[in-house]
């Protein structure tokens, strides 16, 4: 048998043997057997020295080809076996993915804070500044400069925690109107601000009253700011916070620091405007108060009311949260029951 025939035979035999290997060890043994230093191919190659110089390169290259083909076949087989083993291993590693995950600690913002942030972001986007003022306020800013002189009957409407005759816990965020107007340089541009914060009233805590709650004041003063601008702005707030499907209705109202004054109602959540107990059968729910800044307020803050004017509004995040989420007791916001707070962990 010629060396070439011998190599052909080895190749065929080797390929045949490979087919029956199924274990890695077996395959390894076969590889060593076929391609190792003591293996048949090496042996054949050693016999090359007896060949004629013409035959030698032909057989040599054929031997290399045989070795390469065997190597390829072994590699392919190895890949197959590895794949099979991996499949078995993965099968064994299977877990119940429906078991609960390890609880991660995540805190969340207070629901009132979420509403305030939402309002802030809306107004920042419209070029408003966000300002904050003192919670312990002077009577002057809280009342007098808001067109509520000492004997004004509307002072009865908001019972006040006084510290001294002239110092009080602010009953509203409106004092920030006077404080900012006093400082604002109108030659540099219009005043557009909102001021969120905590306010206090001398109230007994019950499901609908809290001696501490929040307000967001808004104020825009420029040379030409209109009631239509106020209406558009309030509609935007209502739609941002409650959704586009809610209608907004403006009604005349009274605040000493605005004239005209309005209150804004939105469609009742509960009945969609048909009328129910929640909206006292009106189909509307009152959500905020607003108006065109009273000329006296402008004058007292040193702003020329013949040239400048604008609107102000005040809204209550507590009330918004109660309406939006159907919270039936305002005290929930200040007791910090974990079971309450954690209900508002969705960031949306």
């Amino acid at each position, binding site marked *: 048998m010629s060396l070439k025939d011998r190599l052909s035979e080895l190749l065929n035999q080797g390929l045949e043997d490979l087919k029956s290997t199924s274990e890695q060890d077996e395959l390894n043994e076969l590889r060593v057997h076929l391609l190792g230093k003591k293996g048949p191919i090496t042996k054949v190659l050693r016999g090359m020295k007896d060949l004629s110089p013409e035959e030698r390169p032909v057989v040599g290259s054929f031997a290399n080809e045989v070795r390469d083909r065997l190597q390829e076949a072994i590699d392919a087989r190895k890949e197959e076996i590895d794949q099979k083993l991996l499949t078995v291993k993965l099968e064994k590693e299977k877990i119940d993915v429906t078991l609960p995950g390890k609880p991660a600690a995540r805190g969340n913002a207070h629901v009132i804070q979420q509403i305030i942030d939402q309002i802030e972001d809306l107004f920042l986007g419209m070029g408003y500044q966000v300002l904050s003022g003192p919670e*312990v306020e002077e009577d002057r800013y809280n009342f007098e400069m808001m067109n509520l002189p000492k004997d004004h009957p509307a002072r009865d409407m908001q019972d006040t925690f*006084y510290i001294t005759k002239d110092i009080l816990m602010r009953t509203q965020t409106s004092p920030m109107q006077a404080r900012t107007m006093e400082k604002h340089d109108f030659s540099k541009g219009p005043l557009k601000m909102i001021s969120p914060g905590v306010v206090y009233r001398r109230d007994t805590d019950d499901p609908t009253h809290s*001696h501490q709650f929040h307000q967001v004041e808004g104020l825009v003063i420029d040379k030409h700011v209109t009631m239509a601008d106020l209406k558009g702005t309030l509609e935007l707030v209502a739609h941002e916070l409650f959704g586009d499907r809610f209608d907004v209705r403006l009604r005349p109202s009274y605040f000493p620091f605005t004239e005209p004054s309005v209150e804004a109602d939105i469609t009742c959540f509960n009945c969609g405007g048909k009328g129910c107990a929640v909206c006292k059968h009106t189909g509307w729910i009152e959500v905020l108060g607003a108006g065109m800044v009273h*000329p006296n307020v402008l004058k007292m803050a040193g702003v020329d009311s013949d040239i400048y004017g604008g609107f102000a509004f005040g809204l209550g995040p507590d009330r918004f949260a109660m309406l939006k989420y159907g919270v039936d007791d305002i005290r929930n916001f200040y007791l*910090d029951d974990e079971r309450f707070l954690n209900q508002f962990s969705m960031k949306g």
Partner: protein
Amino acid sequence: MKISYNWLKEYLDIDVPATELAEKIERSSVEVDSVTVPSDGLKKLVVGHIDSMEPHPESDHLNVCQVNVGEEELLQIVCGAPNVAVGQKVIVALPGSRIGGNVKIKRSKMRGIVSNGMICSLEEIGFSKSVVPKEWADGIYVLPNDAKNGDEIYDYLGMNDSLIDLDVTPNRGDMLSVYGTVHDVAAMYNLKENLDHPNLIEGKTAIGDELTVAADKEAAPIYKMRLVNNVKVGPSPLWLQIKLWNAGIRPINNVVDVTNYILMKYGQPMHAFDFGKVSGRKVEARFAKENETLTTLDGETHQLDPQDIVIADEKQPIGLAGVMGGLNSEIEDGTTTVALESAVFNSTIIRKTAQRHNLHTDASQHFERGVNHGGVEEALDAAAQMIHELAQGDVDQGMVIANDEKIADVVVKITLTRINHVLGTELTSTEVTHIFERLNFGVEMNDDEFTVSVPSRRWDIHIEADLIEEVARIYGYDNIPSTLPTGRMTIGTLTPKQRIIRNSRSTMEGLGLSQAISYALLNDEEAKLFSMKASLPTKLDWPMTVDHTTIRMNLISGLLKDIAYNNARKVEDVTLYEQGRVFYRTENQVRPDEEEHIAGAISGSLHSEAWNQHHTETDFYEVKGIVVEYIQSLGLNGEIDFEATTKYSDLHPGRAASISVHGHEVGFMGQVHPQIAKKFKIKPTYVFEINLQALIDMPKSDQQYDIISKYPAISRDIAILVDEEITHQQIVDLIQKRGGAFLNSVKLFDVYSGSHVPSGKRSLAYSLTFLDKEATLTDDTVNKAFEKVEVSLQKEFNVEIR
């Protein structure tokens, strides 16, 4: 104020459904609280005539009545009312009817005798006890004789009327009357109002012969009086009683009822008193004297204040002006001479008097919100005329006047341009003129300018802005366009402070703490616990409860109260933070400084227990980890240091640390002292509080990219046995001092004290990492540095290297 729709219709040709009118009023004028129809919910209540009656054989107070309800057969009804009598027309609740309080009436037997329904009192058909005339308070109501048997009773008693309850804002006192409402509704619907005016017939006697008056000008700028003689006091006619009870006022007699009717109709409070009981001939409105007392019509005796206005005769007060009359001059059945007072009293004084004596009446409410100065006299004439008509009185000629005012329209000028400029509308001069005309204001147009004459019945209008509001509400807010402010551009950004506060909150939340908002007003003791700074408390002058008297000087107390609330409800894992202000005050300050703080409190476990997570109580080091992570997130210059402290007496003395950044103390943390925890009734709790304002004010490091070394780092571990008194911080400081230029980090990886180490000692193990960013470190370099560390540790702290 409840406005009767039927009464409105007497002056206005209007026929829209009551709810529609209510919506219109709400959109154009004042809020409407409710619209109610007294007959709503009632069923099968008819007029019956008691044909005959005999005592119930088994009862000493029941009567068996045979009642004609317009059917062929009489209805037998058992009645227990003391005033039931043959010949009366009564309210019969037929079998199957529904009376007040949603009660159903069925055929029944009373002590063996069949009763086919019920004869009703006013209260039983839904009348409030407070409006039922005294005459009918304890028995059934008797209808007029001409009531037709079998008719529904509602129209006889004014119960098919719609009552529109107005919630009047302080500026619209004019809406507290039927006439005021008529004027406004007329403007809304562009209707013409048909008001009636008094046509008084006076007698021959001149009033001046019998009565003189005086009044303080400040207290009563307008003060007028009439006198009616030969009055016959008796019940008012039913039409008048109906008007009163539908407005929520109890009918009393034909004099008092007239004054209440005039108040409802004109909005002018009117006081009537028995002139026969007055001492002397002079009546005066003056300030009360020291130590004067007055018993008012409700039977209460008041110690008067020199700032109260009283009506007085020559001897004593006979009424609390503008609030309530005195019992000593009350109109009674025998009264024959009635003095009628119509006045304007100072609204501030009346308000204070009503508050001082806790006596809020319809009259005081009207005076507080103002009355029409131009309507005082018409109301007085109308009242006198009614008393003449209803009680056959003779009205003296003329009136006596202590003070009076010249009444003139208020003239306000405004341009069309201004109106459109403020409202953002494009109204024409014709449209605006029409609106003023609908309001019945005088209006003249000159070029662009309107000259508007506002009658005295709208005393709330003085300035341009008031007229703009009138135009807006009558034009309709719905018709105003929706736009957004234009004009010069402004930039809306958060300030650095606001950004840091927002970031602080989201970092805390990322670290697992939920935001709490607790009460800032605490009790005295809670307010001053955990205080970082010596400060005087800021206290409320007149607190509502003892729980909320003082403004907080720390945030932790509020959080501990929150934890207590949770613990009491079996919620034991509580992880909260709060961002808010604390209020510090020095001796010379009245208004405290407000400082932004951030604080946290963790009780129980931070991580909730699960099948693959054991319950682990939080501890000092977990909370410390949170604090460090938080402060690091702010990117401040300098190191964060913790130092044991005992200056916070509300913290566990061995588990408390002050926190400093770059050498400045910014806060503290630790375990709540067990005694404090006990007081709050909470489980062991760890807390921290940081002066956030201080962190905001600190310089921030300019963050720069740090090259990641290409060269490998080399680590060396060292375990030492050291005296317990030596702190970790001391050791780390020393290692860092002696570790050479390439020492990159020192990490504690084991702490042990227990049976395997001598008492008073503990074993600490550190891993030191060396790194040269420029070149590969040699073992030799590292060994030298490490050796230096070992030697100094031995020398400085006498450690044993293990």
